[in-house]
Each structure stands twice: as structure tokens, then as C-alpha cells.
């Protein structure tokens, strides 16, 4: 092993045991958690400008803080905020979870009986992963509720359950990925369904506001949260929602979530899959992969940025590296290049584009393969290389640009992942993260690139629940702690 390798490996440490994690030292864990971070030397550069979603979120937050005051009960502002979570979504949703009902049930708070507990945390069971761009929320809906239990269930708990399970969209931005729902899951002795919900991080203040209005704090549940936002919004949860977050290490959660979901499977199907014949467009097909003996594996989490972890066992893993060129970069560049405003839009455009008009390929330079280096003619020599020419800039479509952006980011992640796999001597690479959502192009390209450049030595694996593992891990921490 190289000296670098030795040194890096020495960083690996077993996970802290059980309950200790509540107060787990944040230093090491948090540093690893800055998985995607990449260097810049300018320090103290003030964040300027306004208008981005981020700023929007901050701005929206400010008046509430000022208006409501830190200690006062937050004011209701739903009318002013059309994009609110519990705003005019589906009719059923708003009817079921109106703030009035929630407030009305407020009197019943704190009357729950011990019979529910049985060494389990109180319902509702949530796991929250607050990323840079998206918030991932998993919710366990108990299906084995007895009549007695139903009677005892406090009003606002019931409201939450009904609101979440009877809707597929919340406000204009919250979405439940119904197709990912895990049915008949047994968790802590309870049977139920696991729901997967996501919404943009810039709507976090609205979410907290809603929690506050539904008197979530009165449920005396612990809200387990991971991701950078667990820190960023901790104070808001406390002041606006009267909620104490339990902050969890995001890498711990990620791995825990992956291992758990893979072990329970996807409603009888395999959670993990791969692409057979990734280099052959005709024969390429998605096939289940048995991840029963997963170690060692390289886990590549592609969110806004990318983290790469080498996992040697459930408790022994190490952050290898990260790159700032991730899903956020794809989406951000697409917005700038094409004027699109949603990830879906960007993906849709990409799927209709031709990146070879934008990129300079090996064959554009050498007329064919560059045999001396074993480079095939189709390989990209320079991403966006054709855009150096004015004429070519004028002849490409937005779709071409979106596709090229997608290919550039994907190839780069593949390349870094491949190098890490080689350096770590690991040949299974599992790609997760919301960048891969509705993104077969990237998945197949990753599969292809890993297979091609490693001459079949490396295998790219994917998981159905793409970006939800951190949130699942957070939920599992909640249950473990009980």
C-alpha cells in the first residue's frame, strides 16, 4: 500500500456503540460528513447576492422570526405563503391536515398511555435527512394499530398519519415517492409501511412552521435528523417548532440505511441491481444483485456533492474522498445553461440531447481511436470542448447542453470512483443518492464506464431507494435508542 493509503486507513475507526451516539463526538464524525467538500482557499468570503432558492428560504425565515419572536408562539402565515407544505396541495391533504384541526387537538396532547411504548419510542416514527438541496423524510406508518390503540391515538398524531399517507404531494414541492413504499415491514415489533418523502431544503422553514402549527412537540417524540441541515436548522426547530432535534452522523446513518434496506428487500424484490452487458446498448438490462456479503464495498453517495466511502464491515468504514462535482453541479449548470428550474426538467432535456455536439471526442481530434494510449474514438477528450468555437456554440440546443452536463458530471464521478476503488482494492462500487433518481442515463453510463475502463474488473451496483438511506438510518437510530 502506498504511504497515503496507510495514513488514510489509520483514520478508520469503529462506530461508537449504541446509545453513546447521542453524544457522539462530532469532531471526527462531522469532518467525515463533509464528504463532498472540496477545497477553496478564499476564506471569509461573504455570502452575497440574493434571489437563489437558498436566499429565498432564508428570507422567508427572517420575518417569521422577527414577527413571531423566539419565545412567542409562531404566527400563522399560511395565507401569505402559497408554496407552503400544507398549503393548497391535494384537496384531501389540506382538508385532513388543516392547522385548525391541529390546534383543536392540542388539548389532548400529553394524554397518551404507556401501553404504546413497550420499549419502543413513541409514534410518530420519522427519520430526517436534511441535505444541501433536498430533505429526505421517511415515515413509518404502523398498520397493526388496534382499535384500542386507535382510540388512544392523540388527534394530531392521527392527523399527521392521515395527512402523510393519504397524499402523494405536499404543497407544491413535497413529494411522496409512492413507488418506493416498503410494505408490511416489521420494525421494533410493529408492522407497517415505510413511506419516502422528499422536498427541497429551501422549504425547510415552511416544514418547521407546519410542525409547529401541528404541535408536533406535544407528541413528545424524538426527531432524529441527519445531514448538514440537522445542524443548520437545529435552532429553528427549537425556536419555531419547540423541537429538540437529535442530530446524527450522516455517514453512520447512510451505511446503516443501506444495509438495512438491502436486508429487508424491496417488497419481495431485490433492492440492489446492476446492469448486465453495460457496454452493449442492445443487450444491456437491469438485473437483481445479491448483496448478501457486501464487504468490502465502495459506497458512492451522489447528492448535491459526492461522498465516497470504503466500507469494510458494518462498523468499519472510512470516508475516502469527495467531490464538489455532483448532482448540485449538474442541476446548477443546467439552470444556468438552459434556464430550466427543476431537476425533472433538466433530466427530461438531457434525455433528448446529444452531448457529442458539445463535447470534443477523441475522434474529433485524432480522426479515430488514439491507439498509442488505447483511447477509443468515442471517448470524450474535452467536455464542452466544442464550445470553444463560436459557430458550434450557436448550433447546439439546450437539450444538447443538458445532456453534455449530465455526461460530464457522471463520467467524472465514475472516474473518481474507479480510482478510489483501485486505490482501496475494492471491486464493488455501490452508487446511491438522489442524483440517480429518474436518471437511467447516468446509471448506465456509470456501469459502462466502470466496466470498460477497468476491463470488467469493477462492478457498478445501484439501489432502488437511491437517496433515502440517510433518512432510513436516522429512523433506525431512533428505534435503536429505545
Amino acid at each position, binding site marked *: 500500500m*502506498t*504511504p*497515503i493509503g496507510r495514513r488514510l486507513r489509520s483514520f478508520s475507526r469503529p462506530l461508537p456503540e449504541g446509545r453513546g451516539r447521542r453524544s457522539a463526538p*462530532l*469532531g471526527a464524525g462531522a*469532518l467525515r460528513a*463533509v464528504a463532498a*467538500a*472540496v*477545497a*477553496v*482557499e*478564499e476564506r471569509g*468570503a461573504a*455570502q*452575497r*447576492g*440574493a*434571489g*437563489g432558492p*437558498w*436566499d429565498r428560504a432564508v428570507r422567508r425565515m427572517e420575518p417569521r422570526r422577527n414577527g413571531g419572536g423566539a419565545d412567542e408562539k409562531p404566527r400563522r402565515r399560511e395565507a401569505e405563503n402559497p408554496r407552503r407544505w400544507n398549503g393548497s396541495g391535494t384537496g384531501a391533504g389540506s382538508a385532513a391536515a388543516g392547522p385548525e384541526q391541529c390546534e383543536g387537538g392540542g388539548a389532548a396532547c400529553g394524554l397518551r398511555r404507556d401501553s404504546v411504548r413497550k420499549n419502543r419510542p413513541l409514534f410518530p416514527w420519522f427519520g430526517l435527512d436534511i441535505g*444541501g*438541496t433536498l430533505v429526505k423524510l421517511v415515515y413509518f406508518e404502523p398498520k397493526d394499530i388496534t382499535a384500542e390503540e386507535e382510540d388512544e391515538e392523540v388527534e394530531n398524531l392521527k392527523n399527521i398519519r392521515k395527512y402523510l399517507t393519504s397524499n402523494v404531494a405536499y404543497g407544491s414541492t413535497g413529494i411522496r415517492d409512492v413507488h418506493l413504499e416498503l410494505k408490511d415491514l416489521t420494525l421494533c415489533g410493529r408492522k407497517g409501511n415505510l413511506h419516502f418523502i422528499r422536498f427541497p431544503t429551501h422549504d425547510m422553514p415552511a416544514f418547521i412552521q407546519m410542525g409547529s402549527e401541528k404541535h408536533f412537540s406535544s407528541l413528545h417524540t424524538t426527531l432524529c435528523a441527519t445531514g448538514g*441541515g440537522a*445542524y*443548520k436548522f437545529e435552532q429553528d426547530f427549537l425556536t419555531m417548532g419547540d423541537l429538540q432535534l437529535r442530530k446524527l452522523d450522516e455517514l453512520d446513518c447512510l451505511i446503516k440505511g443501506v444495509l438495512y434496506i438491502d436486508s429487508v428487500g424491496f417488497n419481495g424484490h431485490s433492492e440492489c441491481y446492476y446492469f448486465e452487458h453495460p457496454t452493449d446498448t442492445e443487450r444491456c438490462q437491469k438485473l437483481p444483485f445479491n448483496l448478501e456479503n457486501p464487504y468490502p464495498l465502495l459506497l458512492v453517495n451522489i*447528492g*448535491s*456533492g459526492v461522498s465516497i466511502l470504503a466500507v469494510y464491515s458494518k462498523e468499519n468504514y472510512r470516508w475516502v*474522498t469527495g467531490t*464538489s*462535482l*455532483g448532482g*448540485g*453541479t449538474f442541476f*446548477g449548470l443546467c*439552470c*444556468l*445553461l438552459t*434556464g*430550466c*428550474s427543476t431537476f425533472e426538467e433538466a433530466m427530461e432535456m438531457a434525455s433528448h440531447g446529444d452531448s457529442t455536439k458539445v463535447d*470534443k471526442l477523441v475522434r474529433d481530434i485524432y480522426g479515430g481511436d488514439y491507439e*498509442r*494510449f*488505447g483511447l477509443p474514438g468515442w*471517448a*470524450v477528450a*474535452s*467536455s*464542452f*470542448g466544442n*464550445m*470553444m468555437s463560436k459557430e458550434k*456554440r450557436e448550433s447546439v440546443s439546450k437539450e444538447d447542453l443538458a445532456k453534455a452536463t449530465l455526461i460530464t458530471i457522471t463520467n*467524472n464521478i465514475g472516474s*473518481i470512483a474507479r*480510482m478510489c476503488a483501485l*486505490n482501496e482494492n475494492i471491486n464493488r462500487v455501490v452508487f446511491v443518492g438522489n442524483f440517480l433518481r429518474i436518471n437511467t442515463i447516468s446509471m448506465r453510463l456509470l456501469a459502462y464506464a466502470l466496466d470498460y475502463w477497468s476491463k470488467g474488473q469493477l462492478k457498478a451496483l445501484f439501489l432502488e431507494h437511491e437517496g433515502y438511506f440517510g433518512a432510513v438510518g436516522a429512523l433506525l437510530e431512533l428505534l435503536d435508542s429505545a
Partner: protein
Amino acid sequence: MHIHLHTDEAGRGAGLAFKMAERGGRGSGGHGSLDKSITLPPDEIFRNLENAKRFAIDIGGSLTKLAYYSTVQHKVARVRSFDHSGKDIENEPLYEISVQEEITARLHFIKFENNYIETCLDFIKDHLVNTETQVIKATGGGAYKFKDLIEKKLGLKVDKEDVMTCLIKGCNFLLRNIPHEVFAYQKDSDTEFRFQTNHPNIFPYLLVNIGSGVSIVKVESEDKFEWIGGSSIGGGTFWGLGALLTKTKKFDELLQLASKGQHTNVDMLVKDVYGGACQTLGLSGNLIASSFGKSTTADKEFSKEDMAKSLLHMISNDIGQLACLYAKLHNLDKIYFGGFFIRGHPVTMRTITFSINFFSKGEVQALFLRHEGYLGAIGAFLKGAEQDNPNQYSWGENYAGSSGLMSTSPDVYPMQRTRSGTFDMFEMDRLERPLVNLPLLKDPSTYIPDTVDLTDDAMARKYWLTCFEEALDGVAKRAAASQPDSVDAPERAEKFRQKYWNKLQTLRQQPFAYGTLTVRSLLDTREHCLNEFNFPDPYSKVKQKENGIALKCFQSVIESLDSLGWEERQFALVKGLLAGNVFDWGAKAVSDVLECEPQFGFEEAKSKLQERPWLEDSYSQWLERLKGPPHKCALIFADNSGIDIILGVFPFVRELLSRGTEVILACNSGPALNDVTYSESLIVAERIAAMDPVIQSALKEEKLLLVQTGSSSPCLDLRYNDFVCVLKYLSHPSQKCLSWMTISNHTSRFSRLDKGLAVLVRERKTDLVIIEGMGRAIHTNYYAALKCESLKLAVIKNSWLADRLGGKIFSVIFKYEVPCK
């Protein structure tokens, strides 16, 4: 019509028929100001085309680099010994001086914008004579595009060479030949450029070439290299994507934008994700979590500058990360970066360096090359010149003919000094002998000859630049006077003065232009400039006269020494050596005295010397040592002509010989100031031998050997002692009594005995090295550690330096060192 050269050259007569489209050109600027384009006739750029051959061209996306090999006729000073047998020697000079033509090889490299290619080819065609060249080697992406044009214009067949092979060949060539080629870039340091000492072993290394894409190549030896990877995110991505995002078309303009932008407006930082918790968590909140992560919206405008900066960070970081991953996989710790993306751009070098430090945690070093832009052209040239075996020679940068590294200070760069329309030149002269290390160096890999790094030491830099400026008029005058028979000598002397003046001004602004700035490099640059204008030896006449005078005193000096007791004699010898060293025309304090007091002699010099205890005084230890067994062999590096060599060094040598110590006396091969040259030393030795039986028998028995250092510098780099030619002294002069004293055609009393200094030093079991003079023992080698005993002595003839060392002018350095066992 102008072409603009970003050298400090002054224009030499306008009006040459050179038609060239003027693009964004500016007129000629006045002298004194830097960073301007100066109108220059093209024959100042494409120099020595008359004998040019072995053309090579590297055409990149925007810049063309042309290379050729040519021969330069140099004037060299020769001294000719008379046959004095039976003649009255009283009224004749000791020897004759003449100036001869010598032909040396030179490599020319010129870099210019692709737009000029046609005009440049025309010019070359018109001025190309005497060439048997049929083929031009071509490399680079543009070689294909311009193939027909080149073939048509030059009538040469274009022979294409692989880009990467050329790059590597060029890189190896530079790493081997040019000291201070490599530098690390440090943004926050006083010296942005941290030049690296050439390591004897340059392999293995990683070359990351960032063109439109990125190629990562592992180089293991001269001929063995492997493409181990690459990335499509490179300079083309910056340019292409940057053009789309900012509507800015030019690469340099994009960089200019980037240097003014705030990437934090566009990038999602860790602190954006973690909020204010970063500090309490000990996280570095300024790290980028997601490049362009804040631009995920359609309803916000981002500034061009911010986007360009973000893009630059994204690409630089990515390249740095991949380079580190490859370096780790292949266990390499040196990464050289090249390609148009770098091209000396400070903002790029900064981000790449930061990225490498970050991802490797400081274990890998990002290194850049001063002549990075020429790698391909050098490589292509070498491919075409294999018959001439350029690799078997050593080549040195000609400071007079090279542009040097451009300014990178943000206010000057890059817009003020537009790259477009500028020509950049790089010339290398062939050194006739291979370079080797003196085997007596304790650790050649850490040996740094120069005592003060003037790039680092701003105060010293200011002083020395002024010092050289002030001495310049005198040097120019001396140069003109050295060639009284030449009509154009005053004109050439003025050109020399102007050129060196401009070099000094360049160095004031850009001390890093030619690598680490040192007193040695300032002296060497002056020698190069003097040679450029055919003043091979401005002090030849002074030296001739002083040698003659000193020789006349030799016998009386010896007699008075012999009359002393042993201990007094040892002190007198050392004092004589030091007094001799006062006679240094390179020191202004001395030259002023010598100019106006022609009678200033040996005794006067002795009286100027500082009394003991000296500024650095280990004389007592030396005396103790002399009481012990004699040294086996002493290697002496001599300094000045005249009194220094004849009345200082030779008596000292004579004493050593008498003790039974063999002596190797090393003198410069070529002239520098009034330093004694090898050929002069031969004549002097011959004449002393005629007077002194000790010297005579020592020469006969080869106990005294005269060698040349291969250098023409007033300083001494012990790593680069050339192959030396040792002449054997014959008892009886041969028939050809009047023969030129040159290396190949030597004087009558010596016959050739070829041997490298390194071999000689080992053979004779050299156990004492004596280095004499300010240039060799103070400006250089003051801290040099040797494997054997050493004696460094000099008189400080410069009040500033004396002051710095804590003494006064004419303070004495007597540093006797014994290596710790």
C-alpha cells in the same frame, strides 16, 4: 507594422520589411517601464536564421512554438604565448591577445500567436539560407490544420510527431538542463515562485498535461512513459463552458473574469449546508460542498465573474483530485503540470496547488515549469535532431536571448500585458562538456551554491540591482576600450549597456523571471549580454598588463617569503593570498581605486586588509593543521589575474608543494571580469616555472596540475564542473613555438591529458579544497559542505555586504572547515 516582443530588448533600427497585420498592437514604449510590448524588428526574434536547421513546430490551440538549431559565431578572446627564449622580455608584453571567431551551437525557441503564423513563415522563408533542411517536425493539435500552409510556405515536408512523446522529451530535456526550471507556486508567500533545486534523479514523476482535456502520464525514465489516465474536464471545459456561461470568448479574458469573481455566490459551501454550526463542529465551512450548487434556480442572475471563478475552482479542484488519486496509485510524489490551461496563469496555478495540497494532505507537490509552453516544441525538435545527439550535450539558458517568465502580479496580469501580439523567446547554448557533480560535495542533492536568494531577500535584491546598475557604465566603457581597433565597439558597448540595463529593470519587477535571482545569476547575465555584443573579454588588456607586472615581482616575493621563519611564512602566505584577492575589478570599491591609482600595488593592498581577528577567522586552526601531516592533494579554485594568481596563489601553491601536497589549480575556461582564465594560467605557470624550480619540477612530475572549470562565471557552482582538459607539461618545447593556446590546439609546453575533474579529484585523493574570492567563496559556496577539509577565503570589497556580515569594507573571511566525522 509592429510585432511585439515581451522581452526587454530595445529595438534595433526600424524599417525592416516585415509586413504583419497589426492586431491590438501598441506602439513602442519608452524605456524604463516594464510590461509593455516593444516594437522589434523580426530579425531580433528569429535570430541566426542563416545557418538554421532542424526546424520543429508545435502548434497549439492559440499559440505556435517554433524551434530550430543554429550556429552562432562568437568572438572569443585568445591569448598567445611568445617564444621568449633568448630574447629580451623586459619590454614586451607577456603574451598576445587576439579575438577569434568561434562557432557554438544554439537552440532557438519562439512562441507567438497562431495568427502570426503565415507572416512568420514568410519571414523565415526569406531569411533561410544555407540550409539543407528538408523536413520540419510538427506536433500539437494544430499541426494537422497548418500542414499544407507550412509545406507551401517553407517548402519543407511536414513530419508529424506524437504530442505526448514530444511533451515528455521536452520535459526531460528541461529538467536535466535548466537549473531552476521547476517551481512551486505559493500564493501567500513573499515569493510566489519557490524554485526547486535540480535533483540529480528526475524520475519518476507524473506529468499532468492540461490542454483541452487532461492527460496524466507517468514518466519512469528517458524513454519509458505510460499514459495512465486522463479526464475530459480540462482547459476546453473551462473555455467552452465558460464561454457559454459568460458570453466571453477568449480564454485569457475568462481567466481575467475569474480572478475578479466570488465563487461563494455560486458554489454551495459546507457552511451553507451546515449553517453556523461549522465553527463549533470544527468544520471548514469554506470548503465547496457542491460546485454551482447555488445556481439551481432559473430566477436569479449570477455575475460573469462569479461563475467564471466557480468554474475555475471546479476544474482546478477536479484535476488536482484526480492527479492525487493517480499519484497515490502509482506511489509518486512529484506532479508537474503543463498545458495551455496553466500557461503561467497565477490564478490557475494557485487553485491547482491548493487542490493538490488539500487532497494529498501535503504529501504530493504541485510543480510548474518555467518553460512549460515550450515542452512540445523542444520534444519535436529533439525528435528531429537525433542525428546531432543533442541529448549528449549539456545546454544552458542564454539569459541574453530569453524572455524570462512573465509577470504574474495581479495588477499587471493578464490584461495589461496582453498575451496576444507578444512574442516570447527562449534560447539555449550548447555547453561543450557534460555537467557533473564535484565528488567532494557532501550532499549534491541538497547543495545550493548561492548564499543569498535575492528572490526571497528584497533588501539584498534592491541593493545588488542598484549595485549592478551603478557599475554598468564602467563595464560598458571597459568593454569598448578592450577593442580599440574595432570601429563599432562604442556602439556595441552602448547596446550592451542598454540590454543589460533593461534586464536589470525586468528583474526589479520580476525577480523570478529567470529562476532564483542571485548575485551569480546577475553576473552570468552580464556575461551573456557582453557575449551577445561580441565583447568576449573586456578585461583582457587589464589582465595582460597586470600579469606582466606581477610576474616581475614574483621572485622578490618568493625571496622575502623564504627569508621568514615557518610560522611567519604561513601567515605571510595567507596574507598574500588575501591581499591578492583585493585586486578585483568586479568590485566597484576596488575598480575605483585601480582606475585612479595605477600605482596601487601588493603592499598597498596588504595595508588595506583588516587586522586579525578577522570577520571570520579560523586561521589558528589552519595553522595547527599545517603543523600536522601534509595534505595529499589540494584543489584550488583561483580568482583574479595578476597579483592575485601570481603573488598570492602561486607562492601558496609552492608552499603546499614543498610540504609534499599535490595541487590541482582550477581556473575558468572562459573569461569573466578580470578572473584568470585557464589559458592565461598556463602562460603564467610556464613563466613562473622558468623562474622557480619548485613549480617547474612540480609541473614536470605532474604534482601541479592546471585544469579548467568549464565555467565563465565569476561564481562557482560545484555541481557543474565540466569535463576538464588537463595539459601535460613538457620539459622541452616542441617545434611549434608560436601556437594558439586553445583547448584543441594548445601551447608548446603542454600536451593533452584528457581527464575529468571528478576522476582527477578521486585519483589524487584530494583532501583539501581551497576556494578563493568573493564570487566563489561568499556569493556562492559560503555554506557549501564538503566531504574533505576546506578553506574559503576572500576579502569583502563591498561595504553593504560587509555591513550585512557585521564587518567593514576589506574585512577578511578566512573559513577553515573540517567535516565532522
